[in-house]
């Protein structure tokens, strides 16, 4: 995640630089061609450092150095070498090189003090550019500077995200408050949720256990957290009906949380004595070993009902098909878009994407959770409005709307 953010910041930076460079290089090229076309024999001229710009929307430690150089020399310069020091008469350190014909350099310094490439923020920096010609002659520029870099307090490219967060917060708080006041909120039925009671009842009648699989997500995956809530409701019912429950886990932290959830559910149902940590146990955290283990549990314990709710990858179909072969009722749900088709095909009920998150509100009927559900619907309404308005705007050739929605990272 961190890497990705960093990368995106880099990308914006380079895009800026690149465009500036191109504009610059092109304007140079146009004027130069007509002036001199023959190879000059005089020694190459000095590069002239023009500016050092701090890169916006970052943590500092980056500077774009621009210099000028007569374009007629483009062909005879092999490269420019870039040097930096913290004082004009200090020790200049070689940073890197730019090919001939390129007149800017992005100096990405280190933010670590002990790194030789350390580049302090808000302090004077001095640069030197050496032009190296084909014949091996090196010409040093005058020292450029002082330039400074600094970190920013807010990333301006992320304004749409900030607006989104704030709007969504307002919606959620508003609907939760109105739900608390006792305002009745309608929610449409979800087949997968309505089947939960029936599925538990069936297992009880048959005297067979219930298998609850939380998937291969970690305790912090949203799908897993949604699944914990459902597990709580299921476990409470199971405890009331005195049916057996098996929860094999992939992630040890998920196991710990699931143990807490199931234990509290049994307590709430008034049957703490029925709970033991062996109901919720760890299998292994290797994807296919986990599946092999669950397959074994299925064909040996023959559960009447299987729940697969959480984060799933390729194993989804192996589980669902094995579960089907033992004749279990299967209720599945995941936010992994590539696996939804397999659950839809092989299970009796499937909660598609967002329905999995909504399930906790359905099962609990807690006004707080229902309020949040209403806020989600408003989010969808906004998405629809934005799309429709955006399409209309594009039809009339008004691109500013689309530009606004672009998140610059």
């Amino acid at each position: 995640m961190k890497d990705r953010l960093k990368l995106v910041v880099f990308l914006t930076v380079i895009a800026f630089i690149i465009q500036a460079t191109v504009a610059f290089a092109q304007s140079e090229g146009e004027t130069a061609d007509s002036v001199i076309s023959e190879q000059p024999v005089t020694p190459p001229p000095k590069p002239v450092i023009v500016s050092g710009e701090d890169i916006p929307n970052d943590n500092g430690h980056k500077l774009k150095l621009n210099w000028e150089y007569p374009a007629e020399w483009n062909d005879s310069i092999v490269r420019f070498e870039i040097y930096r020091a913290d004082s004009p008469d200090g020790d200049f350190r070689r940073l890197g090189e730019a090919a001939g014909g390129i007149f800017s350099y992005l100096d990405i310094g280190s933010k670590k003090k002990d790194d030789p490439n350390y580049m302090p923020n808000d302090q004077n920096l001095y640069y030197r550019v050496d032009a190296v010609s084909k014949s091996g002659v090196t010409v040093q520029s005058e020292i450029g500077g002082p330039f400074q870099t600094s970190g920013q307090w807010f990333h301006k490219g992320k304004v749409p995200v900030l607006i989104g967060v704030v709007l969504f917060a307002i919606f959620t708080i508003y609907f939760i408050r109105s739900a608390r006041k006792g305002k009745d909120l309608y929610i449409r039925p979800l087949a997968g949720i309505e089947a939960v009671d029936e599925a538990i009842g069936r297992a009880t009648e048959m005297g067979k256990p219930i298998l609850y699989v939380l998937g291969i997500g970690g305790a912090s995956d949203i799908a897993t957290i949604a699944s914990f809530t459902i597990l709580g409701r299921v476990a409470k019912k199971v405890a009331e009906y005195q049916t057996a429950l098996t929860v094999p886990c992939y992630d040890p932290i998920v196991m710990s949380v699931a143990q807490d959830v199931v234990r509290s559910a049994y307590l709430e149902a008034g049957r703490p004595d029925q709970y033991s940590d062996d109901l919720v146990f760890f299998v292994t955290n290797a994807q296919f070993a986990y599946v092999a283990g669950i397959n074994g549990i299925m064909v040996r314990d023959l559960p009447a009902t299987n729940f697969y709710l959480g984060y799933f990858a390729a194993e989804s179909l192996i589980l669902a098909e094995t579960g089907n072969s033992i004749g279990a009722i299967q209720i599945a749900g995941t936010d992994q878009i590539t696996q939804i088709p397999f659950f839809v095909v092989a299970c009796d009920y499937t909660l598609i994407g967002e329905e999995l998150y909504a399930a906790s509100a359905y099962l609990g009927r807690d006004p707080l959770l229902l309020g949040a559900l209403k806020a989600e619907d408003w989010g969808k309404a906004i998405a629809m409005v934005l799309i429709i308005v955006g399409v209309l705007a594009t039809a009339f050739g008004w691109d500013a709307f689309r530009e606004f929605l672009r998140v610059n990272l």
Partner: protein
Amino acid sequence: MKRRVPLAMVFIVSLFMVIQYFVPLDSLAWMYQYLLDWTIIIGVFALLLGIWSLWHVSYGKIKQRAENWQYSIVTLAGLFIMIISGFIPGWGNLNNYVYEHLFYYVLVPIQATMFSLLAFFISSAAFRAFRARSILASLLLFAGLVIMLRFVPMGPVSTVVADLAGWILRVPNMAAKRAIIIGIGLGAMATAFKIMFGIERSYLGRD
């Protein structure tokens, strides 16, 4: 203590994570890196809990002579051989003969074979579920068949099938995936919000 501290901790940590997204300063990035590092380390501690649970369940089965208890011995054997070969001092880089060979000649083949079972299960699932029971099921069946038939040489019809397959993948496929993704985005945000503000607290248990 039992509930307030964790809830406060969730709020503070998650708020920090949101803020650091918008503020590109060094000090925040420094903290952010620490937080991510810590999460991973705590995760490894948790593995001990996992191993304990595996041992506990397997040992329990053996002790009680539960059904198939003999196989639990196999599990524990695999566990201990792998742990011992993975932990012998001086072999810290994991370049240990037993460890490596167990990985390449035991774990890898089983894993690849488990994965390849999907070829069979995808066939049986198609056979069983691709039935024209209702309009929706027929649509599923139809789209699936078109995509699969693009493999099958059928003379001039093949081109039509290939074009239709391409269209399905380009148009309805795109529309549906976008709608699902937008929904997931909203749901995930809402859940994250509920966790942040302690509305969703099932993961903390109840007592």
